[in-house]
């Protein structure tokens, strides 16, 4: 199976989009992955809280650049297929 670098880039963009879409109140809190429910000063953050931290930080950092990257990808796909 030959994967090219462009496929990797597209997959990365899609995954980041998926992570950024998860809404804090509407979805994550309902599932039990909300941030306030787990933020405490435990000595050892477990796997779950690390994951939630990761999701939150990806959302915070990548929201704005992803808008630009998505627009660029859409334009390129329209032009070059």
């Amino acid at each position, binding site marked *: 199976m*030959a*994967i090219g*670098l462009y496929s990797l880039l597209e997959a990365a963009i899609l995954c980041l989009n998926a992570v950024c879409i998860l809404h804090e109140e509407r979805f994550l809190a309902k599932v039990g992955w909300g941030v306030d429910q787990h933020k405490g000063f435990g*000595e050892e*953050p477990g*796997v779950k809280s*690390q994951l939630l931290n*990761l999701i939150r930080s990806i959302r915070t950092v990548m929201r704005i650049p992803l808008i630009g990257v998505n627009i660029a990808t859409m334009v390129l796909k329209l032009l070059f297929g």
Partner: protein
Amino acid sequence: MDVPSEYRATKPSQKRRPKGNKGGQPAPQMAPPQQAYYNDFNMQNQQQQNYMQNFGQPDMFFSGYNTGGPGAPGPEQQFAQQYLNNPMASMAMQYGSSLAGQGKDIVDKNIEKVMSSSKVKYYFAVDTAYVGKKLGLLFFPFTHSDWSIRYNQDEPIAPRYEINAPDLYIPSMAFVTYLLVAGMVLGTQDRFTPEQLGTQASSALVWLIMEMLAFSLSLYVMNLKSGIKYLDIIAYCGYKFVGMTVSLLAGVMSSSTVYYFVLLWFCLALVFFLMRTLRVQIVPQSEVEDGHTRGTKRSLYFILSVSLVQPLLMWWLSSSIMIYKRL
């Protein structure tokens, strides 16, 4: 081109030739920038002298002035003389060299922002003995007893002196060798086109990047505080290319069953190697009394999953080259 020995003796500074300059080509267009970057290689002064005396000359053995040459200068030297005497040409040469120097400065500054070059240089500080021993370790790690890395004030010693330290030389060389051997194997099967080299390269690179991302992500999520740096991760993920190359070679020289056996051997060896090496590097947290058992279990899971992913990838990448269905 033969040069009489007494001529060569008059230019002792010419004896030290810059690396990669065999075969009578003019000195490379790297005008020496005044940076510490080149001090390691100790070539700066020689390059400057070689460059200043060699530009415009097709033959490196002669200096810029053809005094005392053997007999009458040949046609090439005459042409070079005219070329050299032209002031515009020499000015253009110097301008070009200064431009190249500036370009190199800009590139170096930008690369410094992304990746510190001194850290990368650490991984390439290897010598032949280290490479030989490390390859022997990759082939047969079962008898090696001491896997710890000696540290020198919070920094690991250069791989030249410590066999257990990871390096980037072997993985990068193994990667390129793997691509070439893959091309050769495809050629024996009449499946080779030049684009195949590119597709195999990007495919292997993509799997490598994905593996590295999974590695770093799981290190972060499982909260394993270890001394592993990102370049170490590249090194550990790149060691499997050695096994893949050798098994491809073995398979192409004899049948597919030999390929499978050699691949199996290298998978076992690599799993053992990685488990031993990572167990030393990933120190489980033992400060928190509650997290003591959790930490060790998590690190064990992590090491196991990393080591077991390697044979999978080795098989996946190389079997697509070795085994194919005849259409």
